[in-house]
């Protein structure tokens, strides 16, 4: 029967079984590929993946110019770009989205522009960013910030329109609120869980835009490294990097979900 509940132990058993099945399938495909070509690196055995982990954490020994391990250089570059880009993108999205939802004279000129540009795939805009912002940190930041800005502004604006009723605003006026107080005490607080959810949903696209930009023009970063390693078929490093990206995504999701639970205990989906 559709949506019939199953015991919790069975649920967990199936969940763990799914992961084991995936790993076993991978290993079988790897064994088959090795049987055909002993030197193949495309699908390395699971046993070889720890070598990939060791490799990314091995300090790069250059006698005259000692550098930290490859992983730390890449993660630092990617996280810095992502952090600054997301902060700027989120700040302006919330500001513009809230103001559009609050004032008709701001909504009127901006809503067609935001609606139009939110439909343009940010990766298609990359040549424009390269031309305008060069290929240094500011370019990566622009890719992330502008990449999320339009769609996030759109979702914040819609959250204000849907979740903050005219009644809530009129009532605040009757209780003596000023416009600034309505924006902060009513609108901001009402849509805070939606803002956190929007950030959570935008992390994935932001990573896509950033990795794509790094693959194209990066000198360091997870995207750059994945491209470089895949060129030499050093797939054990690529798979480790991909796994790390998934773990970063999961960690960000967990942190934001926890933040939403702590800050908005009233929120029921």
């Amino acid at each position, binding site marked *: 029967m559709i949506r019939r509940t199953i015991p919790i132990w069975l649920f967990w058993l199936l969940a763990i079984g799914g992961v084991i099945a995936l790993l076993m399938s991978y290993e079988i495909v790897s064994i088959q590929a090795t049987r055909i070509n002993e030197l193949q690196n495309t699908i390395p055995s699971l046993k070889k993946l720890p070598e990939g982990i060791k490799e990314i954490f091995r300090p790069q020994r250059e006698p005259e110019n000692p550098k930290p391990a490859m992983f730390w250089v890449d993660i630092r570059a990617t996280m810095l770009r992502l952090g600054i880009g997301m902060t700027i993108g989120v700040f302006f999205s919330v500001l513009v989205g809230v103001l559009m939802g609050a004032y008709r004279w701001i909504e009127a000129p901006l809503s067609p522009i935001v609606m139009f540009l939110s439909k343009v795939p940010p990766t298609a805009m990359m040549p424009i960013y390269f031309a305008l912002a060069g290929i240094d940190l500011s370019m990566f930041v622009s890719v992330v910030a502008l990449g999320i800005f339009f769609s996030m502004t759109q979702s914040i604006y819609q959250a204000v329109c849907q979740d903050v009723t005219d*009644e809530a605003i009129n*009532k605040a006026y*009757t*209780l003596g609120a000023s416009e600034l*107080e309505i924006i902060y005490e009513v609108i901001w607080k*009402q849509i805070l869980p939606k803002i956190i959810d929007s950030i959570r949903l935008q992390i994935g696209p932001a990573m896509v835009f950033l990795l794509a930009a790094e693959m194209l023009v990066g000198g360091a970063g997870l995207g750059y490294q994945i491209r470089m390693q895949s060129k030499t078929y050093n797939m054990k490093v690529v798979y480790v990097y991909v796994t790390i990206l998934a773990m970063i995504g999961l960690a960000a999701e967990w942190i934001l979900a926890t933040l939403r639970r702590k800050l908005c205990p009233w929120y029921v989906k």
Partner: protein
Amino acid sequence: MSQFALEVKSLSHSFGSYRVLDNINLQVLPGQIVAVVGPSGCGKSTLLKAILGTNPPTSGEILTDGIPVRGPNRNVGIVYQNYSLYDFMNAEQNVSFGLKLDETSFLTRFFAIRTYWEKRKKHLAKSRDFLRELGLENACGKYPHEMSGGMKQRVAVAQAFIMRPKIVLLDEPFGALDEAMREDLQLMLLRFYQENLLAKKEGRRPEYTILMVTHELNEAIYVADRVIGLSRFHTQGDQGAAIVYDKPCPLFSPEDPRDFSRFAQQRDELRKAVFNDEYIKDRNKYVTFWSELSDLANSVASTTTQK
């Protein structure tokens, strides 16, 4: 301070060429509970929005306590049918929200945190006391999604009244509640009215002045001390709805039995005057309250002077 909590002077309202309200004149004294009834689409909500200040009239003027209404403001409280409590605040925070807005500035809340928290504690205590008076001591820490409809509506009433506005507008306040909840809330309004009577007796200005829109005739006559009928079924009906009925109601105390037969005759008269489209009448025929109103206003004025 004006002798009237609310004055509506020659108010008319049109949507394009369609005239909804025609020459509405209304005066409400402090302490009155006035029910407004009328057929669907007759302009009750338009009148309420005009008084609230969200829908300015095409012509005419509205004064609360002698001050012209230019927009929603601190003098007029509102309770909506759908509760419209703030989801992100629990009951006591919802009720104390107005006190916070009134007594602390936006900057104080960020830069004078100690002073702010001292005041905030007092606001929350006051809000808890008020909720306790309304029998809601168990609701203090609950968020709106954890409360029943009746609880939410009582919290919404408390949120409006704790601010002591000149008048509170109730827009179909009990429309979404079951019968038992309705009864509870009706009794709450009757208790407010008892407090008004006590205040008048002691020479104080009554605190609970209410204009309530409802479609329930029994509720209107049972709870209010004056009922107003708004309708287009009068001789100049094509010009818009007007007040075609304005009479005092029998007074009930919360302890009295809910005996609606006491006002059966008035209910029939009200139904005929307001809801019967086959009975087109002179709009002033059923309006008897104006002469009594001026006497009442004089008595309130003299009480205030003596005090």
